[in-house]
């Protein structure tokens, strides 16, 4: 079947041509990195590494999250509302193609976002890591972005085209601030410190923070993310079924 690759390429190109999307997903983490790099001394020690390195991982995580939530959530909700998802069901594409393509598109887009933030760290922040560490960091952040991708798709199924923007904005805010992506978790108020343990954003970034500190990524963090991915994946499948059984959206 040549349908899936054709559709995937169409989706990726359509997303990349969207200037606003690319601007937000790449621009925000890069700009925030440059802006907040000097909030601390770049060479200050934190969690077994330097602030400039630690914060690069934070912003790469933030970028991966924003990219996924917008690629999945915002666009999916709009396309359900416009009737495009229904139109796709009357093509030879199998019914699961839309979701899998949205998740795959998210994953494909996330990789360059992570790379651009890393490049900013290298060129502007002066981050120095061994080639192996760069590679492992990129791979770990990329692979675990799967949980954000499924979160994005779920948001797109749950929200309507009107509620999706506030929902995505709120999620971005909550997950990044309370997950310690802007202020390191130990510096957060006590109550919030406990909240972080429940957020995928915190565990996601923790994997990367461990890598840059020369530690092995925590099995606990990976476990929580996996659990998130499974639960979100099931929820997505369920929402998709509900949507499918409805004849008229």
């Amino acid at each position: 079947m040549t349908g899936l690759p054709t559709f995937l390429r169409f989706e990726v190109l359509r997303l990349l041509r969207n200037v606003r999307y690319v601007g937000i997903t790449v621009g925000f983490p890069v700009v925030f990195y440059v802006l907040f790099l000097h909030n601390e001394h770049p060479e200050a020690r934190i969690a077994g590494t330097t602030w400039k390195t630690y914060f690069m991982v934070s912003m790469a995580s933030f970028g991966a999250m924003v990219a996924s939530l917008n690629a999945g959530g915002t666009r999916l909700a709009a396309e359900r509302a416009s009737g495009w998802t229904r139109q796709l069901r009357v093509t030879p594409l199998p019914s699961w193609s839309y979701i899998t393509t949205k998740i795959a598109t998210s994953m494909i887009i996330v990789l360059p976002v992570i790379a651009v933030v890393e490049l900013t760290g290298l060129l502007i922040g002066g981050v120095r890591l061994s080639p192996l560490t760069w590679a492992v960091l990129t791979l770990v952040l990329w692979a675990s972005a799967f949980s954000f991708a499924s979160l994005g798709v779920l948001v797109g199924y749950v929200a309507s085209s009107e509620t999706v923007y506030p929902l995505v904005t709120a999620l971005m805010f909550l997950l990044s601030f309370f997950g310690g992506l802007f202020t390191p978790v130990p510096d957060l108020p006590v109550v919030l410190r406990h909240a972080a343990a429940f957020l995928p954003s915190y565990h996601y970034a923790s994997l990367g923070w461990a890598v840059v500190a020369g530690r092995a990524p925590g099995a606990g963090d990976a476990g929580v993310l996996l659990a998130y991915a499974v639960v979100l994946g099931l929820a997505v499948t369920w929402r998709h079924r509900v949507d499918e059984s409805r004849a008229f959206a």
Partner: protein
Amino acid sequence: MGLRGGPPRPAEPGGPALRFSGVVHRYRSIVALDHLDLEVARGETLALLGPNGAGKSTAISILLGIQRAQEGEVSVLGTDPRSAMASGKVGAMLQVGGGSGLPHGVKVRDLLSMTARLYRNPAPVARTLARSGLTELADRQTQRLSGGQAQRVRFALAIAGDPELVFLDEPTIAMDVEGRRSFWAMMRQFSTEGRTVVFATHHLDEVDAVADRIVVIRKGAVVANGAASTIKAAVPTRRVRFASKGVDPARLRELDGVNAACVRGSQVVLDSLDADATVRALVASGVSFTDIEVTGADLEQAFVALTSDLAEAHTVDDAVAPAYSAPIRRPPASRTAP
């Protein structure tokens, strides 16, 4: 090809394009399809005609495999609807609610060429563009299209894969008169090439120019089936009004040609298939009347009357507004003609 289990099955080009037998479909307590039977031959253009809520969209969504029939049998191109869809021989234009039905951020041409590539033997994109009157709009972004233009793109999506069988659900619903006219011209050309086309509409005037056959459905069941001329002959096209006191509507209903009788105080309105026969029968019946007047009924409204509950009830009391309220007057010339 043909290697799956046993000898390859002949493609049975002689079989019907689709068959619906005894299909029942409910939405909770609403019966949308009530033992609907339907058969469409290959190459035929069939209009599914019926008022809103008749079950047209439900029938089409089952034929497309979007929903499964709860009872009864459905076959499309000799197989089940989902396999037919997956085979790439079916195209469809669905009824859309508020949206355009299109994704944003893509040019019309790119959207069509992607869609075409999902099918096994697609039509060249340039041809699809020409057929749907979109050549000029090929480089337009989808979000910059007007409602009517978006509708043409959705038609183009339905035919991009050069399908054998095409379903169109209320394809002209948001179009103006000119848009409708050019749309049906496009459709006519498309359907003359041996393809099977099934379209749903609630506009009686749209069907006779295009459809080989019309199936009128009402409350999920077939109420009429035949060529456009046959269906039109069954629709009351004349209205006879007069004043009369204490007349029995049941008796009026028996008069020749009368399809529906409405008595409202001393005012009587008869919907008739044949005004001459009705007036003759009225005189012969001995019912006293004054102020008789014969007018042409609006075909559209008469059709609504045919497919609504009023056609059954025959009598409308004052509390219920009749389905027709603005009969079109017959031009005086035709009444004063020698």
